[in-house]
């Protein structure tokens, strides 16, 4: 198994009432409520949490980015990845990921990622995402070309990583007359690429066709099983067998010394008024053209209040269906066993705390996860045969049959 630590990096020092009064806590909620003094403190606390996670035995640190909202302070995952490349020793730096459509220059991204890979001595896992709808608006990027830009930027980055330059790129959305970055990744054939997602079938199919592991973000167990059915089917059609090494899952999981405290802190996973990404108008979260046309009817009904929020499950329901797991190690391990048995992922991210959970409680949670939960999960993983891409030496992609290795390393 590959076990990762994750936090959204909540900007917990924002005035919640102001958000409620305004009616939104994303995109248009004014950054006058961003407090850089608290921000400075929090960024440094989060860095300490990442280092602690390495110390207590996590295999990886999962990073992401979002814009214009207190639910996530990290506006550029490559910045934290760069810092961690130099300040950690062992953990994989798993970016889930860089929102490709937001990039006007994917070659620059290819360079940044190559630098992170070299500084970290080959510890980069470079996930890619489409970015949420609001991210398109926050960066002025056309949502109608989101998927086209995602796919084209991906192709350009992989080419920049794997084929010697200079070459010319004349695409539909990107045109570069000279591609020849003097920074290429340490890992060959190229760093592993994992694709996280929650809703879009198209992304699951795309990842499976590429033979990239897919990371399901806190979906319900039944929904997760459907994702793997679909992935495995496409894998089979593509000519390989799906399985644990292609399956990842992000679990919201808070551990404390007592059940009561764990449950109270776990409520903070709902801190953004029950919304994953903060309160926002539906048309901000899903601008026209961002969604697959097959969702159009359902979406317009939701956007005008004729259909309930597909992501609006109550805390109790999410505890019940294990989208949120909370407790002491003793009570949490059996729940996680159930998840592993039923959905068979080999990559697990632990979103350990959120919102206003204190620094101290977060550290306790990370420590208990590392000392008591992770060893148990490793045993269960062995028992169930949940070998991660690293353990299984699975290929980097459909196009490259070999696993990723630092150049010069003995395989």
């Amino acid at each position, binding site marked *: 198994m590959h076990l990762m630590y994750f936090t959204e990096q909540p900007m917990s020092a924002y005035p919640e009432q102001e958000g409620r009064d305004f009616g939104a806590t994303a995109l248009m909620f004014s950054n006058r409520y961003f407090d850089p003094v608290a921000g400075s403190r929090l960024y440094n606390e989060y860095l300490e949490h990442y280092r602690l996670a390495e110390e207590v035995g996590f295999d990886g640190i999962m990073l992401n980015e979002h814009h214009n909202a207190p639910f996530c302070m990290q506006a550029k995952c490559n910045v934290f990845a760069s810092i961690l490349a130099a300040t950690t020793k062992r953990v994989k730096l798993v970016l889930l990921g860089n929102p490709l459509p937001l990039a006007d220059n994917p070659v620059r991204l290819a360079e940044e990622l190559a630098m992170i890979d070299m500084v970290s001595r080959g510890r980069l896992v470079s996930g890619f995402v489409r970015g949420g709808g609001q991210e398109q608006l926050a960066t002025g990027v056309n949502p*109608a070309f989101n998927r086209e830009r995602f796919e084209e930027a991906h192709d350009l980055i992989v080419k920049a990583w794997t084929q010697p330059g200079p070459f010319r790129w004349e695409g539909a959305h990107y045109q570069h007359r000279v591609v020849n970055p003097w920074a290429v990744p340490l890992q060959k054939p190229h760093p592993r690429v994992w694709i996280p997602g929650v809703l879009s079938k198209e992304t699951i199919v795309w990842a499976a066709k590429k033979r990239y592991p897919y990371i399901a973000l806190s979906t319900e167990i039944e929904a997760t099983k459907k994702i793997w059915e679909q992935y495995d089917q496409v894998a089979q059609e593509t000519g390989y067998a799906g399985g644990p090494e292609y399956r990842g899952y992000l679990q919201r999981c808070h551990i404390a010394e007592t059940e009561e405290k764990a449950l109270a802190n776990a409520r903070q996973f709902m801190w953004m008024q029950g919304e994953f990404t903060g309160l926002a108008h539906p048309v901000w979260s899903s601008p026209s053209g961002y969604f697959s046309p097959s969702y159009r009817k359902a979406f317009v009904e939701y956007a005008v209040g004729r259909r309930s929020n597909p992501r609006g499950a109550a805390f109790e329901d999410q505890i019940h269906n294990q989208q949120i797991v909370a407790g002491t190690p003793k009570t949490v391990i059996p729940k996680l066993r159930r998840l592993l048995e039923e959905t068979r992922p080999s990559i697990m991210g632990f979103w350990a705390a959120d919102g206003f959970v204190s620094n101290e409680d977060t550290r306790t949670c990370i420590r208990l996860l590392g000392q008591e939960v992770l060893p148990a999960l490793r045993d269960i993983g062995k028992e169930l045969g949940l070998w991660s891409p690293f353990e299984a030496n699975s290929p980097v992609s459909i196009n490259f049959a070999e696993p990723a290795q630092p150049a010069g390393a003995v395989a």
Partner: protein
Amino acid sequence: MTPSPGWRTESVPVAGISLHLASAGSGAPLLVLHHDIGRPERSPFDDALTNRFSVLAPSHPGYDRSSRPDWMRSVRDVAVVYQWLIAERDLARGLTVVGLGFGGWIAAEMATMSPRAFKRLVLVGAMGIKPERGEIADQALLSYIDYVRRGFTDARAFDRLFGAEPATPVLEQWDLNREMTFRIAWKPYMYSPTLPHLLGGVTTPALVVWGRDDRIVPLECGERYQKALPNARLEIVEGAGHFVDMEQPERLAELVTRFVDKV
């Protein structure tokens, strides 16, 4: 809603697009270019014009029932498609082009391409020019209903046309059309920085009409169009917002007819 009696529809192939074209009436040719929200099945304004004109009302490429050209990237591309249509149908002689809102921007682009390609130009609350003081309302931040409501000064006029709660198929259509608008007018949003520099060559007689309470495209844009076009007059319609054709259809039809009679 079914179209008003007397309208014919056809699909016209232009630039690989299947262009949906509605037409009715008799008289001198008049081309109506619709708003960004699309063309309603029934338009009292278009109906009023059929008494005097042979009215052609196409759906823009990628809007309503016209097929989507995946390659299309700008409003100027749309303008060229309509120039192609005009040339192919030999309509230029005596043609009046009436552009409503977003369609006004297309009409203005068409006029800059070949100032003698048609006889008269009518721009109604047209997008296309960047306001100096205000802003063009950003529909990406507004729900479908809120955006369209914003274009009316009288909420009851909206209710009469669409119902207080427009039906889901109408919303789907607005979403589809919004997507196409994003595909061709995302950045800069709803204007061309080069258009004002090119309007000086348009000697075509032009009538610029603006709703007094246009909360989508500020009235100052109307003033700028009037100044930039060498042969233009500005008419302000009271009791109307952005969708002048929907709020004051008779009044707008009368303004267009009088303008055509005079020049």
